[in-house]
């Protein structure tokens, strides 16, 4: 009986733990940011006065981007712009001087440290 109770309690615990351990959320950490989630990776795109910033998280923690690269694609008014973003320490990439027009379609492709694994996200900023 005790074993059964323990099993049930453990089962219930695991059930409650499931969602709590789930990855990512769409709430931006930075003003004006928009978030896209791909599996356990979160990409937050933040238009700032001097350009565009990109923050990457994995499992809700900052992903150190050293050795990684990111390419930003912006399509607006029939014009496509591709920018290789600059690593800016921690989990941040920047694209200085770049503007994202209203209604633009934006995509990011992150290449991991192994130089071959790629994870992408597509944004539709309002």
């Amino acid at each position, binding site marked *: 009986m005790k074993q059964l109770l323990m099993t049930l309690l453990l089962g219930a615990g695991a059930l409650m733990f499931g969602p709590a351990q789930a990855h990512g959320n769409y709430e931006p950490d930075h003003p004006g940011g928009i978030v896209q989630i791909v*599996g356990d990776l979160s990409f937050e795109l933040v238009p700032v006065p001097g350009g565009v910033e990109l923050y990457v998280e994995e499992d809700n923690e900052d992903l150190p981007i050293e050795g990684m690269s990111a390419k930003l*694609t912006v399509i607006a008014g029939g014009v496509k712009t591709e920018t290789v973003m600059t690593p800016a320490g921690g989990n941040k990439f920047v694209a200085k001087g770049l503007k994202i027009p209203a209604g633009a379609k934006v995509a990011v492709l992150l290449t991991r440290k192994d130089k071959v694994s*790629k*994870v992408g996200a*597509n944004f539709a900023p309002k």
Partner: protein
Amino acid sequence: MFMQYQREDDMKIINKLVAVTALAAGLLVTTVANAHGIWFAQRATQLALIYGVGADDLDSVKRLPLVKSIAGYDAMGGAIPTRLRVAGPLLLVDSDSQPSMVAAVLFNGIWSKTPEGEWVKKGRDEVPKAITSEKNFKYAVHVIGALNGPLPLLPEQVLQIVPVDGKLPLEMGKPLTLRVLHRGKPVEGARVLTDWVNDPDAVPVKTGADGRVTINVRNQGLNVIAAIWDGPTDEPTKSDKIEHLATLSFVLPHAPE
């Protein structure tokens, strides 16, 4: 007495009917089950080209030589340099920038079914007593993210499934009207399976004369919709028909966690 004979006769007829129906259903299931398709799915956060049916995610690397084209497209429909990369047992999509759509074509050769019921990878010229001989082409289109306009018709996708309204629902269970096109023209009688991965043995829904069919989107996750259509042969000595199997896949995102 008469009543008893009558009942026995009725039972014989019913039994025969049941047997014929079961056989027909079996043939239908076998026909669909024998067909393998290609589609795109996320594997370890990256996009992979999958070959198989249902939960059978088969050896795609072995089939890499059969892949005739792989392509990536941006949000304007412009081509992005894209390749397939072998990563262990997977074929991963390797694009120069993030695509909004990817597509692939695989030619699976000519297959013949022998009178004994065995499928062999030979044409009718080599298996003259074959019950049927068919060329097999597999097509796949995957939409990444939201669809905000008509899906472009891709020349390599000889059979293609397109959403009629140029958009996809956000939630499972919602209706989605599709059109199945062969070289850009509507196809009547294409067999459409709503969920190629989770319900490959479902009774297919057939497209109407305008190539349209309306389904309910099954999954709040990966959806792989398949359409199968038998077209005329281009090599009568080798095959009786060309089986085209096209998939349209997309993901409905899950709720924030």
